């Protein structure tokens, strides 16, 4: 029962940022419910939608808050209403289930969806959690229970030229095609590590893009280790085989053990330098060569989005890819009235997220006195645990290896917002003795820019950890702020 954190706890840093919420509120403002609601769900992605449905099915009044104009999250990002598609599902995995859920969401009498709305402050109180929102719904929501389903942010690694226009994240390529019907480039290179690369290659090829190559820095040996997981979860191996067959049909090479180590061009991407890398991701000398491309899309896994969870005081646990929210068997966090489901509790993919969301929604509704069938819930928990075990093995097959640092040169920008170069970061660590991300931030301005360390946080955290020998700290150390979104000063 700690007190809510006052607005001044931020030092005004975010609230005074001139780059506040965009007027993506293209539509009439919507009113948030004035009275208290049983359950508020933050995030309408693969975890949040099942959470909202489960809670509402149990009889709870639910508010579902989402930053995007349409529900689905990044994974099932939808086209704008103004653009129609005969078969939108060909760009998505698991679309039939997703579109069923969209329909159920829209039709449910007890769910209120607040789209294009972000929570900028969450205040835990003894009898409720207060959510202050910005965007289409600018209001205060009084929630008896809060389910956090804020997902994860893509993780990227820097390399010379990664800030040139034409270098994007793989998630950006997915979002552009699924959400806007536009390709990121004409000749596209996909590089990084993890299962997202293959899925994205599938989306790009289906959308008529020339994909020059798909490079996974982890070698085939690591892929081999993922086989037991694929056996446990047959859908995954079939899915991967389908993507590989599609690549073969388009004569797109899939190359394990290769990475993009530099991008060149006169002001914009013109070519990528790719190379074979060893097990530690150091470049094998003599293997570097050029590929002419106009877009390079990179993906190195995900970092859980724990910002709001941290702000309301949920216990976090360190993981190699960033801090995660600690939850119990019922998806409850350490903070009363706050639950969490999906990637922010550990990055395990959309099917695990959906099961976690369903558990969280049912548990939140039960906490408010709505009857939930205990046997149903137990079955759901067992399915979730099986799915978690399968996903664990699969994701361990795509780690980040330390040798990526050898791709950097002195002038490589590490923090894109504040334009902090690698030599400055190294100087702060090696000469000035910065031993954690916080002191590095103070000496170099890394993580102090508009993105609030969303991009450079995990990178800087790795660089510090390598030097001190300590395990990578959580990147939230770069941006511990009560205000979770940048908002225009006028809205305060």
């Amino acid at each position, binding site marked *: 029962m700690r007190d809510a954190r006052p607005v001044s706890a931020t030092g005004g840093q975010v609230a005074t940022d001139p780059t506040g919420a965009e007027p993506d509120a293209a539509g009439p403002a919507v009113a948030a419910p004035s009275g208290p609601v049983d359950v508020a769900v933050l995030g309408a992605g693969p975890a949040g939608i099942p959470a909202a449905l489960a809670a509402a099915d149990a009889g709870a009044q639910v508010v579902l808050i989402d*930053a995007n104009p349409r529900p689905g999250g990044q994974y099932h990002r939808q086209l704008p209403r*103004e*653009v129609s598609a005969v078969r939108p599902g060909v760009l998505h995995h698991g679309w039939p289930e997703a579109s069923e859920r969209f329909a159920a969401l829209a039709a449910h009498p007890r769910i209120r969806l607040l789209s294009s709305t972000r929570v900028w402050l969450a205040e835990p109180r003894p009898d409720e959690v207060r959510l202050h929102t910005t965007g289409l719904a600018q209001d205060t929501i009084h929630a008896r229970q809060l389910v956090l389903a804020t997902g994860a942010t893509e993780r990227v690694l820097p390399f010379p030229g990664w*800030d040139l226009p034409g270098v994007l994240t793989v998630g950006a390529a997915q979002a552009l095609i699924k959400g806007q019907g536009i390709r990121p480039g004409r000749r596209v290179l996909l590089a990084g590590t993890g299962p997202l690369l293959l899925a994205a290659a599938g989306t790009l090829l289906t*959308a*008529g893009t020339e994909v020059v190559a798909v490079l996974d820095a982890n070698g085939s040996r690591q892929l081999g280790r993922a086989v037991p997981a694929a056996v446990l979860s047959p859908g995954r191996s079939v899915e991967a085989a389908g993507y590989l067959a599609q690549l073969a049909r388009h004569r797109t090479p899939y190359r394990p053990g290769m990475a993009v180590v530099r991008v060149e061009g006169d002001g914009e991407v013109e070519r990528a330098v790719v190379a074979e890398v060893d097990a530690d991701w150091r470049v094998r000398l003599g293997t570097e060569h050029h590929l002419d491309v106009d877009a390079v899309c990179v993906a190195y896994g995900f970092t859980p989005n724990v910002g709001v969870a941290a702000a309301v005081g949920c216990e976090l646990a360190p993981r190699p890819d960033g801090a995660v929210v600690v939850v119990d068997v019922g998806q409850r966090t350490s903070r009363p009235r706050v639950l969490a489901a999906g990637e922010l509790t550990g990055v395990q993919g959309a099917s695990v997220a959906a099961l976690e969301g369903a558990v969280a929604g049912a548990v939140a509704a039960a906490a408010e006195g709505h009857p939930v069938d205990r046997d149903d819930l137990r079955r759901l928990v067992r399915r979730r645990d099986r799915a978690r075990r399968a996903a664990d093995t699969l994701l361990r097959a795509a780690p980040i290896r330390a040798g990526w640092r050898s791709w950097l040169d002195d002038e490589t920008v590490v923090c*894109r917002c504040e334009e902090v170069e690698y030599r400055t970061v190294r100087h702060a660590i090696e000469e000035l003795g910065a031993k954690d991300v916080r002191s590095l931030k103070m000496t170099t301005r890394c993580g102090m820019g508009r993105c609030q360390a969303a991009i450079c946080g995990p990178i800087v955290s790795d660089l510090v950890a390598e030097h001190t020998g300590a395990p990578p700290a959580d990147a939230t150390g770069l941006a511990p702020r009560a205000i979770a979104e940048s908002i225009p000063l006028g809205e305060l």
Partner: protein
Amino acid sequence: MARDHPNAPDQPPGPTDLPDLRVADHLEPIGLHRGEPFTITFEGQQVAAHPGETIATALLAAGIRTLRSTRVDGRPRGLFCAIGTCFDCLVRVDGSRPLRACLTPAQAGQEVAPGDDTTSPGRAGT
């Protein structure tokens, strides 16, 4: 690729005759259909946009990849995350504060300019 999106009629032909990057209307198997285009401008250049598109999409389709230059070193920047996280794609719309092009809907007649940061180096905002 022959059925790719045509250049909008009010747009002068670009340096190439290649179709733009939009997934073509009616391309199998997706079968997209967009509404009638309208015009926005970027630094005076006319750019076609369709209903539902963001400013970033319209500019990318017109071959405009550099959206601004950075405050300290004047380095070119464009779309990076495309979902509102990285703040690289900043533009000014009709003289606004810098907005994320990837989140801001295109609307007829918008005058878009690079979202160059005019604050002094080392200051996060005003």
